[in-house]
Every structure is written in structure tokens, then in C-alpha cells.
């Protein structure tokens, strides 16, 4: 059944660019984009909060870098798609009568959740990667739970509208409407082109509106948590790395320097989407916990003041056994800058940046 356009649509909304075909195509693209966001987002969430039975693999080393880069950059690319889609169906907001039946009212309530939720995810997400938090909620928690509301409402919307998609997508669009979609596509593509360099170094010169440049920062590497934010001061000769639990040892800074050193090329991949590769030199974690039971959990602890959410991070067997996992003393051929975790930081493959603990002072083997 075809909806008859209401009077308002004929008189007030005169643009000929709106049509079922335009809305259906944008809707299909949004469905794909939000599905991609949900998958990559859940991957990031459960990497940071793994259930006991789930040991993430430590390879490929750049997997998290790619999934999280896709999550954020495709999220930015979705902004023009969502705005265009909402513009294309905007007259429906003012349809009269507003509710034809109880079922129609319920359907519209879910559409309200979908629209509000999709706008919320993209807008607060954009502010979050720009380090702007004008709200009192903790962004990761709000973003995580809202994603279920959005995706649930999206499934209901797809079920409701599927017949329109099947009916109108195979029908070619008129030139003017095709040009409108091409314009929106160009806006999406340009958004990607001007931001993707924060994760994809070859395009970093084009990342003119990205919040990060992978080559800018101390020692040519961006910093997320600063020593000031973490309440960390430069250490003196009294610094010790303490290994405790199933393996017990204690090392001064000089002891660590004298241990066998390894150099690895690994990315820092931030949950905010940016990532940057660097050459790290240090001691293999598995050498420091040699003799630990094969299923042991290894927790590294930072000098950071106790209130920090990311003061400690846990490594499951695939990560602490990996020869690429280091407690690094140097980056890009220089002694670690304080902002990169001097005297000692964790660097491991395929792992969110918030779990690459800096200023490491303790390793607990349990």
C-alpha cells in the first residue's frame, strides 16, 4: 500500500528531490553503516571487557587499529547520510493525523527512538573524539547502551519498511535525485578523505579536520593520557619494577636496561579512532614472567594515582606469551619520553591504546 502524500507535503515541502527511492537508498546505506558500527563497537567493548572464557588473539597486530579506525571514520562518514535521510523523510514527522492506529503509534515511537538514538550516537561520538564533554555521563557507557536502543529500533524499522526498499531500490532514479545522492556521497567521501589520515599515515597530510595527526607529539607520536592527568612525576633511582604472584622478582631501571632487548614495530591504536605505528625497544614480558603457569593472568600496574580507570591492565595468555609484547624502555630509538610512559610502558599487538599501560611499576602473575 502506498502512503498518500499529506496536504502538508504538497504545500510546504516542495522539493522534488524527496522520494521513496531516495529515502530507501539512504536507509539501506544507513543500515549497512550502523551494522558495521555495531560489530566494530562490540569488538572494541569486549576487547576492553573480555568475559572470562574469551581470550582474544594477539594477531593480526593491526586488527584493532583497523576495526576501530573503521568504527570512527565510517561513523563520521555516516553524518551526511543520516542528515540527508532525515531531510528526505522530514514531512512524515508532521503527518496528519499523527497516529492512524495504536499499532501506528507504537511504530512511530520506535522511529522516534531510532532517530533520536542515531543522532545521539553520531553527535556525541563526534564531540567525544574532539575531547569535548559537555555532559555528565561517562561516554563509553552511554554510547554502549544507546547502541542497543538504536539497533533494536533499526531492526523494527527495517522490518516495517522492507517492502518499500524492495519495491523502489530496483527502479532507477531520475537524474535530479541521482545528483542529490551523488552530492551526499561526495560529502561523505570528502569527510573520510579529510579525517582518515589520523589512522592511515599515507593520507595524514590530508587529515585537515581530524583531531589527531599520527606524526605530531613527543618523539613523533601522539599522547592520550598525560603525566599531569595521571598524576605521575619523573622517577628517581629508587624506581623498581616489582614482579609478584606466581613469579617473584625485582628490577631497578639499570637491571631492565641490561636484560636482553628486543625491538618491535607496533601501533598505538586509540579507541577514538586514531592510530600511529612506532618502533619500540624493551624487555619481553614473557621473559619477565618466565615460569608462570601457561594459563596465568598477568596484570600490569601503573604509577598513576589510584583513581584512574586505566591504571591497570590485564593480559591473557595469548598476549603475554606473544614475543612482540614488551615492557618498553625506548621508542623510535630514544629513551621513552615521560608522556609516553617513562621509565617503562606496556606495548602489545592488537590491543586498544587504553590498555597499553604507561609508567609500569608492578607486574602481578596470578
Amino acid at each position, binding site marked *: 500500500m502506498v502512503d498518500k502524500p499529506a496536504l502538508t507535503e504538497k504545500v510546504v*515541502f516542495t*522539493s522534488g528531490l524527496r522520494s521513496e527511492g531516495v529515502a530507501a537508498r539512504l536507509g539501506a546505506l544507513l543500515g549497512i553503516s550502523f551494522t558495521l558500527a555495531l560489530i566494530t563497537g562490540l569488538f572494541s567493548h569486549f576487547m576492553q571487557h573480555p568475559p572470562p572464557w574469551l581470550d582474544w588473539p594477539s594477531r593480526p597486530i593491526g586488527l584493532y587499529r583497523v576495526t576501530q579506525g573503521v568504527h570512527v571514520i565510517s561513523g*563520521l562518514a555516516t*553524518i*551526511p547520510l543520516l*542528515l540527508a535521510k532525515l*531531510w528526505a523523510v*522530514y514531512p512524515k*514527522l508532521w503527518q496528519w493525523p499523527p497516529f492512524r492506529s495504536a499499532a501506528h503509534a507504537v511504530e512511530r515511537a*520506535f522511529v*522516534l527512538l531510532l*532517530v*533520536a538514538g542515531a*543522532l*545521539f550516537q553520531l553527535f*556525541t561520538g*563526534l564531540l567525544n573524539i574532539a*575531547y*569535548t564533554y559537555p*555532559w*555528565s*555521563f561517562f561516554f563509553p*557507557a*552511554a554510547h554502549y*547502551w*544507546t547502541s*542497543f*536502543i*538504536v*539497533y*533494536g*529500533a*533499526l*531492526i*523494527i524499522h*527495517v*522490518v516495517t519498511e522492507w517492502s518499500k526498499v524492495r519495491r523502489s531500490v530496483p527502479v532507477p532514479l531520475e537524474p535530479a535525485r541521482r545528483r542529490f545522492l551523488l*552530492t*551526499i556521497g*561526495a*560529502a561523505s567521501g*570528502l*569527510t573520510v578523505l*579529510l579525517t582518515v589520515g589520523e589512522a592511515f599515515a599515507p593520507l595524514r597530510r590530508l587529515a*585537515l*579536520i*581530524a*583531531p*589527531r*595527526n599520527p606524526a*605530531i*607529539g*613527543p618523539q613523533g*607520536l*601522539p599522547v*592520550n593520557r*598525560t*603525566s599531569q*592527568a595521571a598524576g605521575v612525576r619523573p622517577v628517581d633511582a629508587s624506581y623498581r619494577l616489582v614482579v609478584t604472584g606466581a613469579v617473584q622478582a625485582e628490577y631497578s631501571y639499570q637491571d631492565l636496561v641490561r636484560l636482553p632487548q628486543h625491538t618491535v614495530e607496533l601501533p598505538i591504536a586509540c579507541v577514538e579512532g586514531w592510530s600511529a605505528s612506532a618502533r619500540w625497544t624493551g624487555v619481553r614480558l614473557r621473559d619477565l614472567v618466565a615460569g608462570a603457569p601457561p594459563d596465568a593472568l598477568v596484570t600490569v600496574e601503573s604509577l598513576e594515582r589510584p583513581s584512574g580507570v586505566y591504571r591497570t591492565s590485564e593480559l591473557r595468555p595469548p598476549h603475554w606469551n606473544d614475543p612482540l609484547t614488551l615492557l618498553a624502555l625506548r621508542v623510535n630509538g630514544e629513551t621513552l619520553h615521560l*608522556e609516553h610512559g617513562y621509565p617503562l610502558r606496556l606495548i602489545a599487538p592488537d590491543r586498544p591504546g587504553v590498555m597499553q599501560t604507561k609508567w609500569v611499576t608492578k607486574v602481578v602473575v596470578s
Partner: protein
Amino acid sequence: MSGYRMVGYAAGAGLVLLGFAGLLADADQTRPLSWAVWFGGILIAHDLLLVPLVLATGVLTRRMRRPYRAALVIGAVITLVALPMVLGFGRRADNPSQLPLDYGLNLVVILAVIAAAGFAAGTLARVREARPPRPRG
């Protein structure tokens, strides 16, 4: 109603409920009141401010050449995405690598390039229109 539809509605409603349940269960982190203000506030700002503004612009630029309008749409989207960086509320004195660029200048350059491209496309279209149609033969 077909079985597929029922499964879809049930799965969708279940996920929505899960989302709200999680929001409430994690209230110490999600701050439901703050969440609700932003959830509703962004919707209202979009439906009652942004879209009417776009509609008004659409009416005002009715007679504008198509490439110019396209440049306007693309420029507006890029401006919106770049705005949080341009405003720079996320800058921190102790972290120069956070928002390290001159985003205002960058945005001006990008908009100038978009405008130039739109102008070039518009001029090209005008030249094409002015050309007499070829005689067929």
C-alpha cells in the same frame, strides 16, 4: 503477520529493552538524567532548528545553479563535522598533540577549494548550455 516479521519485532524490542535496562543498571556511569537531556535535546535541535534552517536555505537558493547548491551542501556538512575541532574546547595545555592543528584556517582552505570546484562546475555547465546544439546528420 509473517513469522519473519514477528521475529524481527521481538528481536528489535528486546534489544531496545536491553539498552534501557543497561542504561538504568549502569546509572552511576550513564547518568540517565543527563543522558535523557542529550537524547531528547539533540533530537529537538535537529527537528526544530537544523532542518527548518536547511529548508529555509533551500527556498532561498531555489534559483541557484545546481553545482553551487551542491557545493553549499558539501561545505555545510564539512563545517558541521569540523566545528568541534574549530571551537577547540577539547584542547589541553599539557597535551599539544590533542587537536594539534589550526582547524579554523584548515576549514577556510577546504571551503575555498569546495567553492572553487563548485564555481568551476557551474561555469562549465553554463558554457555547455550556451553552446548551440549540434545539427544531427
